[in-house]
């Protein structure tokens, strides 16, 4: 009884949500107080009806539990990265520990010292030279203005938590990180994932920091609705004056989902193209429904658009980003015709949308990409979102006029994919396979069938001598060849095999000597 009275008089008392009548007041010498409290109660009851039921229940639970026992203290868990799973490039070599991305895991080695240390994680490039030099490939059209990432690194932590803070310890020329994302997949679990979501925790334009001194970078991150132990940092070093060096990443989070009172509703980002593949899926329905109306002539109803020349509308649409193009295709038949015109898809960059690209999306785009000349699928398809069969069917449909193919960090690629590329893209001049380190050395022999190849990037791949020699023999027009970090990693097995071979050779020599002696 006493508790309920207290709850009534408290500003957030919503016990009225259950519709109980107020108890009779035990203090008749305060009629004003009685009137006021009744008035207040009625107002609150109205408010509770218009508010969400869930919120009311939760706050009530909070208030009640607050009076009986202390609120359960949600302990914040602080973790350093356990393992570096994937990255696009690094300064160090594959056999070394110096300046390699694997230094980002574990506790910091160098922080808070500033300077150039070999125990830090350093990306391959900095500054603008790589984009301004004569051999740099031209930028793809329709790159969304918000996409600045040049490199990325994916880190796995021990325990999935709801993140409250992410801290990056940068030790030299900080300020290169442009995006932090979290994944719903647990990379250490054995279950096959059903739905992999990537959520952007924080994102910004690249900035130039005034001093190259070490700093602890802790941006305000968005609250997400799933626990995560897989983070992805995306980096842009073009404004840096020297290599940016990272030492460690700390993930702070809570184990249980934060209660609604502490839960900040995420700001809905209107410019975030989060539904491009849904649009693409809707496209199929739109196409099939509109196909039936082919007999009717296209006239009126499009206003001034009917008076504009076809080419002018095409020119206008060429300034749209890909998700906007797909959304525009759903607006009316005329614009649908324009948006599906293959001339709009001579250059296609799907790298900014790597998190949402799937086999289905590729399938929907297939029909429009007959005149495709430059295709960028870098960073896409990891963790099962793209399969070799989906890629193969796309290449078979769109490979004929393809001139440039960017497949950097595409871990879904298999030997069969490269074989299909060599068969379906006879005119291919540029091929980028950097950091495709899961491709078997045998796969590279198919590249020698691309006789018109001019530019080949094999940074951090496992190509071997035989494949390389055949490429050099048959690709007569080759002008640019990047074989950075193509080293052979010595493993224990190989050393044992070498020792066994040496022993066999010695035995053979002894046998020969014995034979000679016998003779």
């Amino acid at each position, binding site marked *: 009884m006493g508790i309920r009275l207290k709850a009534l008089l408290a500003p957030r008392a919503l016990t009225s949500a259950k519709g109980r009548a107020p108890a009779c007041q035990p203090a008749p010498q305060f009629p004003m107080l009685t009137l006021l409290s009744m008035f207040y109660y009625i107002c609150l009851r109205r408010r509770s009806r218009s508010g969400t039921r869930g919120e009311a229940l939760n706050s009530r639970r909070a208030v009640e539990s607050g009076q009986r026992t202390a609120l359960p203290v949600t302990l914040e868990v602080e973790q350093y990265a356990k393992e570096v799973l994937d990255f696009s490039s690094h300064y160090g070599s594959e056999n*070394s*520990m110096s300046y390699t991305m694997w230094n980002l895991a574990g506790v910091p080695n160098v922080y808070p010292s500033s300077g*150039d240390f070999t125990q830090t994680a350093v990306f391959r490039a900095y500054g603008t030279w790589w984009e301004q030099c004569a051999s740099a490939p031209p930028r793809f059209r329709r790159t969304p203005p918000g996409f600045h990432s040049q490199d990325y690194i994916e880190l796995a932590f021990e325990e999935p938590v709801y993140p409250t803070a992410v801290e990056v310890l940068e030790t030299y020329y900080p300020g290169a990180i442009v995006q932090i994302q979290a994944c719903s997949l647990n990379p250490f679990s054995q279950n096959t994932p059903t739905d992999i979501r990537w959520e952007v925790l924080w994102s910004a334009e690249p900035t130039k920091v005034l001093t190259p001194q070490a700093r602890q970078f802790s941006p305000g991150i968005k609250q997400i609705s799933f626990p995560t132990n897989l983070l992805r940092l995306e980096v842009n070093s073009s404004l840096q004056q020297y290599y940016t060096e990272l030492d460690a990443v700390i993930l702070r989070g809570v184990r249980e989902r934060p209660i609604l009172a502490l839960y900040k509703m995420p700001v809905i980002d209107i410019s975030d193209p989060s539904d491009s593949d849904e649009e693409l899926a809707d496209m199929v329905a739109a196409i099939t429904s509109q196909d039936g109306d082919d007999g009717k002539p296209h006239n009126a109803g499009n206003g001034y658009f009917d008076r504009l020349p076809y080419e002018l509308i095409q020119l206008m649409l060429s300034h749209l980003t890909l998700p906007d193009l797909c959304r525009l295709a759903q607006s009316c038949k005329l614009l649908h015709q324009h948006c599906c015109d293959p001339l709009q898809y001579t250059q296609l960059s799907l790298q900014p949308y790597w998190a949402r690209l799937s086999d289905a999306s590729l399938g929907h785009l297939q029909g429009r990409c007959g005149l495709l000349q430059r295709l960028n699928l870098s960073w896409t398809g990891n963790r099962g979102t793209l399969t070799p069969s989906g890629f193969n069917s796309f290449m078979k449909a769109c490979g004929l006029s393809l001139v440039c193919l960017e497949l950097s960090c595409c871990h879904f690629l298999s030997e069969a994919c490269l074989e299909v590329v060599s068969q379906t893209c006879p005119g291919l001049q540029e091929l980028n396979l950097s950091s495709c380190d899961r491709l078997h050395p045998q796969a590279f022999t198919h590249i020698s069938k691309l006789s018109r190849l001019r530019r080949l990037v094999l940074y951090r791949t496992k190509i071997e001598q035989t494949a390389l020699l055949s490429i050099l023999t048959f690709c007569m027009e080759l002008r640019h060849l990047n074989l950075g970090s193509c080293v052979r990693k010595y493993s224990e097995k190989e050393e044992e095999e070498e020792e066994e071979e040496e022993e066999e050779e010695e035995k053979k020599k002894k046998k020969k000597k014995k034979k000679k002696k016998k003779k």
Partner: protein
Amino acid sequence: MLSVLSYGRLVARAVLGGLSQTDGRDYSLVTASYGFGKDFRKGVLKKGMCYGDDACFIARSRAADVLGVADGVGGWRDYGVDPSQFSATLMRTCERLVKEGRFTPSHPVGILTSGYYELLQNKVPLLGDSTACIVVLDRHRHRLHTCNLGDSGFLVVRAGEVVHRSDEQQHYFNTPFQLSIAPPGVEGVVLSDSPDAADSASFDVQLGDIILTATDGLFDNMPDYMILQELKKLKTTNYDSVLQTAESIAKQAHDLAYDPDYMSPFAQFACDNGLNVRGGKPDDITVLLSIVAEYTD
């Protein structure tokens, strides 16, 4: 008759061999370090585990215990290069390699090679020279794997007797084999040995074996019998007694080094080479004393 005896011997050997391998206890090394830098800074830990131009490390990985000593060659000081930097960085790098498990316990030369390779990755060239000696105990197989490049070395003592020792590698008198990184231009002139030139050895160890790893500051000043005398005082396997013994050995060597009349092993060797020299050899002394004990977490 003879064939029965030989057959019996074979069977006995096989049985005993099989039995010894079922000993599943892991061994470990209880190690203590002590030393003196040449410039009277008695055991001052500069950058941790550095004594003058010498450096050492003690590390533990998942499957092995690893020790290392390195002796920086002092001649570089005349050219403006700090010789302690090379040896200290070499030992820090080897320690990091061991802690990250990037080595094979049975192949300690690999640690030296990888460590030297990592030094070459430095953007600012790390100039200098150093000898090196690395000792790896494979905990489960009870085997000690060692490699030595130069005149540092190790002794394995069992029941008061030296059962194994390393050989000094020298090009000529007072010029040991050494790893080096030279300034560009003088690479052909400066003495530089490859890590592959290191001597490797492997042998089994037993509980209670004492392993003394040290730089030439110790071996050039104290002959074996003096070292063995000090080691007789080590009877337990706890860290404090090991540290005490290491300290006493290092101090005795330090005292002998500055004795002008004492006929040290260095002076003996010099006389054998035709130089009329007496007295100890003032040098950086680093002593890593370990005893093989059972593995406890």
